[in-house]
């Protein structure tokens, strides 16, 4: 297909429809409202369902219903709405229901503001709901990736029967870039476990309740085995100029893009910098980080939050190398120059006059 100038939020919806998604349940919230707007426009055109729910709590439970019926379905929201969805996400994971949710992060906590931030990291990556579950998380850094990762998210959701979150920030959601969309796929047939209200699916049961402790434990172990499998198979990251890097910068989403410029500027000034951009936040590319740790001097994590990604990098490194941190919050997005100055200061790459 020819490239189309598309807004990040709209790219999610178009890519979802092309990936066979036929149901959208959501409640509008800035900076994710264009997802609902585009869904309201496009889903009915392909014979799909668009429902504006009365709240995010309702929309996540509609997702439970849509997914249980074996339909590829999705929702989209931002911080405060994602908080309301957490209970439902725990139920989705517990009942092993595949679905895709886009979180276009804004500043928080509380009502916060509508400017871009990455403060939902812990809630989304660690799982803000109760119980032993995980959500698979993809982190796009461009409008093209918004489209590509949404399609990938549906495949991962079906493969692991688990909710998948496309975790972007207000920047990526609101910006417009040329996008090459994939060719449409046929709407997948409902899986055998789906509850369709037919004689053939009458014996199927979608539930997350296991009253007997032993059965509950077996179910948790089954989920765990699935997550271990995802950790082996689904982890993705992008490395940029890390071959001879002395210091590696780590950031995802819009920050990953800024860090790419930081690496280039830093190299012009003689600093051997590289970039590691996690494309999946869960599973986390810890193996890749440890691999780099064997030959680099240090890491700097940059994020639009207060050290949530840094904690995961520290856990991955297990103390192998020092981890420096740079973060802005509240909707402030740093310039590449600002980050580079922090890199030079933290790693003592600046030279000071001692004689003369």
């Amino acid at each position, binding site marked *: 297909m020819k490239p189309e100038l598309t807004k990040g939020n709209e790219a999610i919806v178009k890519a979802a429809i092309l990936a066979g998604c036929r149901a959208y349940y959501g409640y509008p919230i800035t900076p994710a409202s264009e997802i609902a707007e585009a869904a309201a426009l496009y889903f009915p055109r392909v014979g799909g369902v668009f429902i504006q729910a009365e709240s995010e709590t309702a929309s996540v439970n509609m997702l439970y219903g849509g997914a249980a019926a074996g339909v590829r379905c999705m929702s989209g929201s931002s911080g405060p709405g994602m908080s309301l969805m957490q209970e439902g996400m725990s139920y989705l994971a517990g009942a092993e229901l595949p679905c895709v949710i886009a979180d276009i992060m804004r500043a928080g906590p509380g009502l916060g503001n509508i400017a871009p931030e990455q403060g939902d990291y812990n809630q989304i990556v660690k799982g803000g709901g109760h119980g032993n579950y995980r959500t698979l998380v993809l982190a796009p850094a461009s409008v093209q990736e918004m489209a590509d990762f949404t399609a990938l998210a549906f495949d991962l959701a079906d493969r692991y029967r688990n909710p998948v979150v496309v975790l972007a920030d207000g920047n990526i959601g609101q910006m417009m870039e040329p996008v090459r969309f994939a060719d449409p796929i046929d709407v997948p047939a409902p899986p055998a476990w789906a509850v369709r209200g037919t004689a053939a699916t009458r014996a199927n049961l979608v539930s997350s309740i296991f009253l007997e402790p032993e059965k509950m434990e077996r179910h948790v172990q089954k989920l765990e085995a699935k997550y271990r499998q995802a950790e082996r198979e689904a982890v993705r990251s992008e490395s940029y100029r890390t071959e001879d890097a002395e210091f590696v910068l780590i950031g995802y989403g819009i920050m990953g893009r800024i860090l790419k410029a930081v690496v280039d500027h830093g190299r012009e000034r003689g600093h051997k910098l590289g970039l590691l951009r996690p494309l999946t936040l869960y599973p986390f590319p810890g193996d890749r980080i440890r691999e780099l740790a064997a030959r680099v001097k240090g890491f700097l994590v940059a994020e639009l939050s207060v050290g949530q990604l840094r904690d995961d990098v520290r856990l991955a490194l297990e103390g192998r190398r020092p981890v420096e941190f740079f973060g802005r919050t509240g909707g402030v997005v740093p310039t590449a120059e600002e980050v580079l100055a922090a890199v030079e200061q933290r*790693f003592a790459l*600046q*030279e000071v006059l*001692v*004689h003369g």
Partner: protein
Amino acid sequence: MSPNGKPDRGSVVMNVEECKGCGLCVEACPSKVLSLSKSLNRYGYRPAVYLGHGCSGCGICFFACPEPGGIQVLRRTA
């Protein structure tokens, strides 16, 4: 990177237009990273120049240099 494989810990900035080409700094430099230039400065001297890598930031060249303001030594802050 210096010849012994250690990373640079500093650098030298030569004031080539004030240098009289005496060569004291070139002799004094323990890392042997200074040399006299092949080109002439405005006085017609061959000024001392830094090879561009290998400086340890020790500052010995600064103390060897008889020219006030002839050499600046910078050191990495680590």
